[in-house]
């Protein structure tokens, strides 16, 4: 038995050493990746402004789904698109943006549907990638998020080793679709406009249990915003039609629950389900045409909900 335990510990040590090397690799080698765009978005958010701002909060359905200059032109206010990656989890996304909310801000919260099912609200592998950029955000994590981080630590260490080795062979300065510099000054992803779209858009199917904690957290966030003398609208993400069809029952269940809440909801899920032809590479990422389509739809709905009057009042 002692021999067995010793060998197990030795093996554990060997694996841990490999992973430790991964953790110790300085992360500035990969600081041009998508997750580092949060630095740039934080800079936009932290600037003190006299006029109200529109802040878009959610995952990549926003960065790849909105073209902010159209909104800015329509309402004549600054628009900041904070969307980066749904995999951070809605809790992390909200916690990250909270300190930046100022009086008079208009927050448009548009999370992916998956945030409201099972445990995706707490994040996935991207959470640890987000944290490696902003380690101080560790303080906001709850135990479920910590468990997710522990689960993905080994993979993340190996990813870092791989990235480190890759830099010997190719420069990371090539700006591709998922790069820190793939965004415009508002935080919208635009670099993919020059790339060919994926032949077949992968389909999604929502399943599992509706996470009521996620809905409650959104309610608390809305109350927080109101207390700051700002305002929140809840908007639905741009899910492609085939995925929408697959997930219609789950989305309706979600809609029935969220519409019971007091915060202002813009439109209905079906209004924002977009044709597959408007999608770029995933069920939430739109092409240029798609981004224009969804932004115009959002502008129309915001007008219907009196955004212009709200801005004038402020």
């Amino acid at each position, binding site marked *: 038995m002692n021999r*067995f335990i010793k060998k197990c510990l030795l093996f554990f040590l060997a694996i841990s050493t490999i992973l430790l090397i991964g953790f110790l690799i300085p992360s500035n080698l990969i600081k041009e990746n998508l997750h580092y765009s949060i630095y740039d978005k934080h800079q936009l958010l932290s600037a003190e402004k006299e006029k109200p701002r529109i802040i878009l909060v959610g995952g990549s359905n926003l960065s790849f789904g909105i073209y902010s200059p159209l909104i800015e032109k329509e309402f004549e206010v600054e628009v900041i698109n904070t969307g980066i990656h749904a995999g951070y989890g809605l809790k992390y996304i909200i916690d990250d943006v909270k300190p930046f909310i100022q009086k008079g801000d208009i927050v448009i919260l548009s999370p992916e549907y998956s945030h409201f099912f099972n445990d995706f609200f707490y994040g996935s592998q991207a959470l640890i990638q987000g944290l490696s950029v902003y380690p101080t955000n560790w303080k906001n994590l709850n135990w479920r998020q910590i468990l997710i981080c522990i689960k993905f630590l080994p993979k993340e260490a190996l*990813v870092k080793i791989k990235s480190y080795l890759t830099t010997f062979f190719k420069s990371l300065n090539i700006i591709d679709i998922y790069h820190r510099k793939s965004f415009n000054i508002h935080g919208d992803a635009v670099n993919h406009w020059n790339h060919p779209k994926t032949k077949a858009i*992968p389909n999604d*199917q929502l399943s599992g249990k509706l996470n009521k904690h996620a809905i409650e957290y959104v309610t608390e966030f809305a109350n927080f915003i109101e207390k700051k003398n700002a305002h929140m609208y809840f908007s639905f993400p741009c899910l492609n039609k085939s995925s929408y069809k697959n997930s219609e029952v789950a989305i309706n269940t979600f809609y029935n629950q969220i519409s019971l809440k007091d915060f202002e909801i813009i439109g209905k899920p079906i209004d924002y389900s977009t044709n597959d032809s408007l999608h770029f590479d995933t069920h939430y990422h739109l092409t240029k045409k798609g981004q224009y389509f969804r932004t115009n739809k959002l502008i129309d709905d915001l007008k219907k909900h009196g955004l212009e009057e709200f801005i004038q009042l402020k």
Partner: protein
Amino acid sequence: MLFNTLEFSIFLPLVFLIYWFVVNKNIKVQNLFLLFASYVFYGWWDYRFLGLIIFSSTVDFLIGLKLSKEEKTFNRKALLFLSLLINLGFLGFFKYYNFFLDSFVDAFTLFGSTFDSNRLNIILPVGISFYTFQTLSYSIDIYRKKMTATKDLIAFFAYVSFFPQLVAGPIERATNLLPQFSKKRKFEYENATDGLRQILWGLFKKVVVADNCATYVNEVFSNYAELSGSTLLLGAVFFAFQIYGDFSGYSDIAIGTSRLFGFNLMKNFAFPYFSRDISEFWRRWHISLSTWFRDYLYIPLGGSRGGMVMKIRNTFAIFLVSGFWHGANWTFLAWGFLNALYFLPLLLAEKNRINTNTVAEGKLLPSPKEFYQIIKTFLLISLAWVFFRSDTITDSFHYLKGIFSTSLFESPTFFDTKIFSISILSISILIFIEWIQRTKEHGLVLSSKTPFLFRWSVYIILVVLIFYFAGTKQEFIYFQF
């Protein structure tokens, strides 16, 4: 609790250490601890269903005791009937109630009558098909006087709920597993290390092969109407590897885990995709279920002793029941029926037992004839899996029709090329390693004579592959059964 979770990676070492270092003095305490650990393992999913296992175990324990004392045939039959009624009653209610209700309503609708049905919102308890068959084997074997009833309540409860195989098998017979709970377990270094290797190989099959293939398979089966025949064929082939990686991976982890605790479970898979005919495939696939049906259904029905008509009837019976065991859907019945059809020519020609040895034994590669046989069998099985994976019979037929169309010769759609490449790479590793190891107990049997550096390199590479290429986590497919 799932094997491929953080929870299990904490649970297993903890249970292992307590089992061998704290409660190792007394076998009864050790069994009690195993029972407790098994209930924690099961209750992690949904503690409410623990009551069902406890009730099922109690019923069979008491019936077993009564049966062993009872001499009158009528009373013995009545007791066995009671055991069957209760166990199959639970299984029928939880698994088949809505299916029968819907089928009944559909049948009447065909004749012009319509009426409302009260569908129940029933949650299927994980593993119910597995532990029900396990407890049934106990009652039946006592009835047949193949074994005597145990008087050790804790040992019996621990046997029914033994956590490594509780939710997805292998379906153990009481004659094999129960006596192991009565003997003092001794830690054996070789057995435990080989158990760990088997766990590692099982994890690779599940997390890397099955979960990556699942991503492609899900895409293909959700959009089959818009995809080319070549993509559909690829989807069916990937599903064949997904279900194999998933289920045989689970079995390997279950068997390996049991070995850490000094238990030996039966082999559940014997490299089935290297089979040269359907008959060989069914001797190598889900062995614990096939032999269960052979011993408790096929043989009692007369087996192959009667004439050809009886043989055919029994063959269809076993395949249809096996299909139905997998799920309350016509697709599973169709899958069973198709496999029976595949099997029939071999049965009629009395060639169902010609390939009983290992393929290309002692050779590096199979002969061209063997290679052709393996590919043919694999393709037939993959086409049958289409029924298994589809939501409805109509979907299955449309899917198959889509394969056999002119678009079969178009270039396939890969969706996410990265995941597709990982799937291809992992399938290649799987085939390569299992081919080399096809005479062994599992894919990662390495003798102590193998150089230390080689062995550890293999382990470390596999761990790195598991961490790095882990696909999107999917539930074990067989949990739903």
